[in-house]
């Protein structure tokens, strides 16, 4: 492997690697704005200046490829001065409204200004101002904060496949916007906010909700489809505030879709059933765990019983259900459900050419690998028990008595005779197998809401009730 030197440290590199990447490997962080590893290189922010021996001028590290024996200095006086000058220009029009900006605390402009800028400002002229623009349901634009890095334009063109963001006019009058102020169309609009190095493109869903540094971060996996995008749940005080993608070059690279990003909402929706309920003569009513467990146990003792398990459940939950079913009684049938049109992994495939998959549940392949068979047609049995993680689409159920165990909202569980609330993906740990066979772990970010219990605990309650009934 060829070698070069960054701040005196010898580093190996692959041909075609730029100095930002090579320096990172040497433990040297080069400040960037317009450069993003997932996008093309334009070298227009001029923040990543480095000095290369034998080259007369400062070079931009993002567009300079490492070469054999190259000697790179990132801390020389010339570099410091160059970066300071760049920072001064970038802040000419920036409003410095960090105290009310959502990006504060995770802002590249803030970090780089602190690390490489000057503490003093010579500029005393008036700053240009723009009116905030509503860019659809996901993004709100504040042009005053923009530094024209064009990451958003390149993201749209290169990743989302839609060139909807434009740079109108030039120089001081530039405006990064959509054509004629149209609303954003892409289903990946949340990424605009992630890649924006300033607080210019903010997520409407997160605006003014929480300061970034208050959030606790839990690395997990999205359960929204069989892609299994890596993401981070950001939460505080047992409330999830947002989900952001986590880098995984083999699966989702740096991105995620809006459906997955906002999927967490149902887990803290008011309509989610969080207490055990039982249907009596006067309709569904809150009941004690013992009562609901006992009535389910009585119903599954005899007759034709079907366990419907969602392909949104984890491998651990699926195996526990299967083991418990055979321990409860022989002859309980188990079928999986999840999507109306995709029941087997062979029917799954990309739903667009970016990330989305056709299967809208996270563990279709996992359930299949465990040897569980999919339900075909409608669910017909005397007694049906539905186990669900929260995303699987409920099939038509034809039964005398139905119970639901897991995550349901009031509307979904309206036809059920008994409901035992389970954990959503933000509240549990477990394994999901994505469409390509990658086994990935869900991590628990928040405590269960209300009286929700894990599936394994609910199964134990059923088994205990059964053995007590046997002794009596």
């Amino acid at each position, binding site marked *: 492997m060829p070698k070069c030197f960054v701040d005196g440290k010898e580093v190996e590199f692959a041909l075609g690697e730029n100095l930002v990447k090579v320096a990172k490997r040497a433990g040297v962080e080069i400040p960037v704005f317009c450069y993003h590893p997932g996008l093309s290189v334009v070298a227009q922010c001029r923040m990543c200046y480095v000095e290369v021996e034998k080259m007369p001028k400062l070079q931009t590290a993002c567009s300079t490829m490492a070469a054999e024996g190259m000697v790179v200095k990132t801390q020389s006086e010339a570099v410091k001065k160059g970066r300071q000058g760049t920072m001064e220009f970038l802040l000419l029009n920036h409003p410095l409204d960090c105290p009310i900006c959502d990006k504060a605390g995770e802002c590249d402009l803030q970090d780089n200004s602190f690390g490489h800028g000057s503490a003093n400002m010579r500029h005393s002229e008036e700053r240009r101002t723009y009116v905030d623009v509503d860019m659809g349901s996901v993004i709100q634009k504040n042009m005053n904060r923009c530094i024209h890095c064009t990451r958003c334009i390149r993201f749209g*063109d290169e990743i989302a496949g839609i*060139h*909807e*963001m*434009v*740079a*109108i*006019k*030039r120089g001081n009058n530039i405006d990064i916007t959509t*054509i*004629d102020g149209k609303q954003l169309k892409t289903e990946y609009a949340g990424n605009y906010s992630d890649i924006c190095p300033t607080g210019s493109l903010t997520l409407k869903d997160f605006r003014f909700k929480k300061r970034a540094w208050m959030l606790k971060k839990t690395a997990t996996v999205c359960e929204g489809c069989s892609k299994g995008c890596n993401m981070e749940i950001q939460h505080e005080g047992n409330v999830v505030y947002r989900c952001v993608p986590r880098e995984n070059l083999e699966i989702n690279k740096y991105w995620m879709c809006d459906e997955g990003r906002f999927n967490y909402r149902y887990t803290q929706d008011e309509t989610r059933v969080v207490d055990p309920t039982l249907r009596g003569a006067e309709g569904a009513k809150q009941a004690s765990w013992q009562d609901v467990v006992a009535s389910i146990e009585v119903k599954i003792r005899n007759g034709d019983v079907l366990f419907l398990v969602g392909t949104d459940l984890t491998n651990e939950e699926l195996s526990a259900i299967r083991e418990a079913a055979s321990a409860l009684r022989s002859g309980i049938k188990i079928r999986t459900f999840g999507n109306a049109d995709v029941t087997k992994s062979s029917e799954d495939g990309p739903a667009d050419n970016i990330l989305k998959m056709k299967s809208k549940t996270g563990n279709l392949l996992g359930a299949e690998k465990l040897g569980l068979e999919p339900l075909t047609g409608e669910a017909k049995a005397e007694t049906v028990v539905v186990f669900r993680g929260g995303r699987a689409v409920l099939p038509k159920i034809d039964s005398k008595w139905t119970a639901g165990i897991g995550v349901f909202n009031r509307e979904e569980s309206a036809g059920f005779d008994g409901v035992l609330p389970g954990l959503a993906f933000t509240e549990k740990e477990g394994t999901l197998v994505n469409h390509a066979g990658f086994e990935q772990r869900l991590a628990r970010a928040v405590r269960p809401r209300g009286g929700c219990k894990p599936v394994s605990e609910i199964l134990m309650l059923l088994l205990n009730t059964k053995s007590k009934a046997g002794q009596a």
Partner: protein
Amino acid sequence: MEKQLSQKFYEAMKDLEPRYPNKKALILPALHQAQAECGWLPPEVLAEVAAYIGVHEAQIREVASFYTMYNLKPVGKNHLRICTNVACCLRGADELMSYAERKLGIACGETTPDGMFTLSEEECLGACTTAPVMMANDDYVENLDINGLNDWIERAKNER
């Protein structure tokens, strides 16, 4: 969508095409030609040029708004473009601009109600040796002073 540009435009483009390494390089001449035909560049024309070049409309928008020669709003019969960059500014371009604004009764960037004059600010016209400079329609008016500007406007008014 109905075509806005004539057969003549497409023929001219066909002649120009071999001169450039790729079709994208044809954006500037295509916009010039389209503007010569329509007087300005309405959104439909920009969309048609984009379709002809084979790029997204957004890219044409970026190019057309970057250069001041392209009119994204309708302009009057006479288009006065006063350079306000460094050399011209030092030689009194700002006074010329405010004189023209008073004389025509419009602000920079506007068109007179009778459609006779449009006044705009121009980036460097590359004639710094003879600053201040104004581009009046397709001609350069160099070493401009307030009298010269006044004369030019009066002459244009009488030519109606």
